[in-house]
């Protein structure tokens, strides 16, 4: 790495100041407030405040619905990431083989990324609506009574599809770029040596795509855990019986709807811990992978 030597000791601080100020005002200060709030019990208007230590955390982990939300989040994040990555990879490989129509397909596949998450949620909610939805109607013709209002499995499938749909576009772009950076000569050499398309994909393309895949895996898990609030709010509202209540949605329900600020703050702090953990993982492993 290159070291820059500043003549003036204050200049580097001065140059860093705007970024530091933004971080302090928009991240450190609110985060600190959340940590402090998580140790308090307070009424909604803030008239009476009691310091309760770790009582909010204790109540949280004793709450079966919170443990349920942890589990739901894990299932949801892994399924969304797997589905979004899998579909995107198939599409990207298909486009990579195309010669003439590739730009048109790429444009079409990237399109959903421009759709706002709440609108994406409403779109899928309409199609799967048990009363008026076209997909629910189609499933009924096939003998399946789709009912995401009461069936936890159907509800989970709905939010996973709605959340993954948008992310496919994003992953697709990265996979196409990743595929294009793989030298054609390698695959051609393997082909001459007699390796079939499937063999070539698994022994050459996939390993060379690992940095992209790993990066996308982290991005997708983070997306599923934190950015899917609008999708869930617009489709299932966390139901039925909190079967699709992920951690972020529970923070919103308890804090913004229920006005239980202490518990909501404690949940935010737990979430913050998870983000920090995921970020550390990303830096440690992605960096290592990229340098191989």
């Amino acid at each position: 790495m290159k070291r820059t030597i500043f003549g003036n000791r204050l200049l580097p601080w001065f140059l860093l100041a705007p970024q530091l100020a933004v971080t302090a005002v928009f991240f450190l200060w609110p985060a600190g407030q959340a940590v402090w709030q998580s140790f308090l019990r307070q009424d909604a208007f803030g008239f009476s405040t009691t310091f309760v230590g770790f009582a909010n955390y204790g109540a949280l982990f004793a709450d079966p619905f919170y443990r349920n939300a942890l589990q739901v989040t894990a299932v949801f994040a892994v399924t969304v990431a797997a589905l979004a990555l899998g579909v995107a990879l198939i599409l990207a490989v298909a486009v990579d083989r195309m010669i003439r129509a590739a730009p048109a397909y790429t444009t079409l596949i990237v399109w959903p990324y421009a759709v706002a998450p709440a609108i994406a949620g409403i779109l899928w909610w309409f199609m799967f609506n048990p009363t008026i939805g076209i997909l629910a109607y189609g499933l009924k013709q096939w003998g399946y009574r789709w009912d995401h209002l009461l069936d936890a499995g159907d509800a989970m499938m709905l939010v996973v599809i709605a959340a993954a749909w948008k992310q496919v576009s994003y992953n697709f772009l990265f996979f196409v770029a990743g595929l294009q950076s793989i030298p054609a000569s390698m695959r051609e050499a393997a082909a001459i040596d007699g390796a079939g398309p499937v063999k070539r994909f698994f022994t050459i393309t996939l390993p060379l795509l690992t940095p992209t895949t790993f990066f996308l895996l982290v991005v997708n898990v983070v997306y599923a855990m934190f950015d899917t609030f609008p999708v869930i709010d617009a489709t299932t509202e966390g139901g039925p019986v909190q079967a699709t209540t992920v951690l972020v949605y529970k923070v919103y329900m308890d804090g913004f709807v229920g006005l239980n600020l202490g518990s909501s703050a404690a949940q935010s702090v737990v979430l913050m811990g998870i983000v920090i953990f995921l970020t550390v993982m990303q830096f440690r492993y992605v960096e290592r992978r990229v340098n191989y």
Partner: protein
Amino acid sequence: MTRLLLSSAAIAAFATAAPAQTEIQWWHAMGGELGAKLEKIAADFNAMQSDYKVVPTFKGTYPETLTAAIAAFRAREQPAIVQVFEVGTGTMMAAKGAVYPVYQLMADMGEPFDPAAFLPAVVGYYTDREGNMLSMPFNSSTPILYYNKDVFEKAGLDRDTPPATWQDLEAYSRQIMSSGAAPCGFTSGWISWVQTENFSAWHNQPIGTNENGFGAIDSQLTLNGPVQVRHWENLKRWQDEGLFQYGGPVGGNDAPPKFYAQDCAIYMNSSASRAGVVANSKDFEVGYGMLPYYADVAGAPQNSIIGGATLWVLQGRPEGEYKGVAKFFTYLSSPEVQASWSQGTGYLPITHAAYEYSTAHGFYAEFPGAEIPIKQITLHTPTANSKGLRFGNYVQIRTVIDEEFQALLGGSKTAQEALDAVVARGNALIAEFAAANR
């Protein structure tokens, strides 16, 4: 063109030079058609006098509006008036330093104000134990029954007789389904509000201890009584048989389309849904009825309870604004304004005068369905079980009711287990609220 520009500039200059009006911020949760009607009320008030200007601002759903007002209060940026839904009443009442009780406001500002002018069934929900009105009722509704007259006739039922009891409703639903007139008997919006809270009041069953929570902040829910359990059990059975179709949690978004599409012949929802029902039932004739009751339950039918929202005045605004708020409330509760608001929306008139005004102008003779909600809330003098309810954290308890009802319909719990869970989880939430507001 230039002349036009000049003259409009002159008007603009004149307008800014006029004596400054006191602006009164009013945060509300009425979107769409209702929002337009609300803004007209404010605009009419502003046109009528020149000292005050009421500025309505749409803040989203009821919970969003309440949260916004609380956040604003904490940041000392609160509006003078905020519209809060009925289940937020417990939260507002506990915040003694934040609200300016309406009775006190009217007295302090020397504004004529007679609590006896208001319908007791409406204001009872918002008065303290001494009978003082704490907030100004604005949009109050009560659930009623809507039915499809054409489907009734096709099924061989009398098109002018809505089901009076749950026994009738079950029999009618069976006949509707077996005759092929419609694929489903009935659906309902608001399982919590209609099929649980109002159901309890209508059958004179307690929802909680201490007069449904009116008496003390640390009350307990008693929703798991035998009558409520029986009803939830029936709903589950009827759902399994297809007589009843579930419309979803909270307001039950899927219930109205089931009725509009003539899938379900009977539909229970707020009286304020009437405008929507009328607009969406072009292909069939709609009939109206009171909520059904179990004929063998002593004391039923009692009276139904209200829902909707009231206007709360928040503390901490400049003194001058409160004078305007008091004047605006007087205008708002005048018979003409009330009658026009309730006729256009299906909400209840909040004063005796407004009710009489609508009657005298022949409104109820022309639209008989519009009078049912008023008849229903005033059917008998409210008892301790049918005045309403007042529990802390009730917004969350509503969610609990929805979740446990879903668990019942999904088959993972019996009616008794589900309602026991409502009570246990609800009591924990009430205790938490009591601890935070000590």
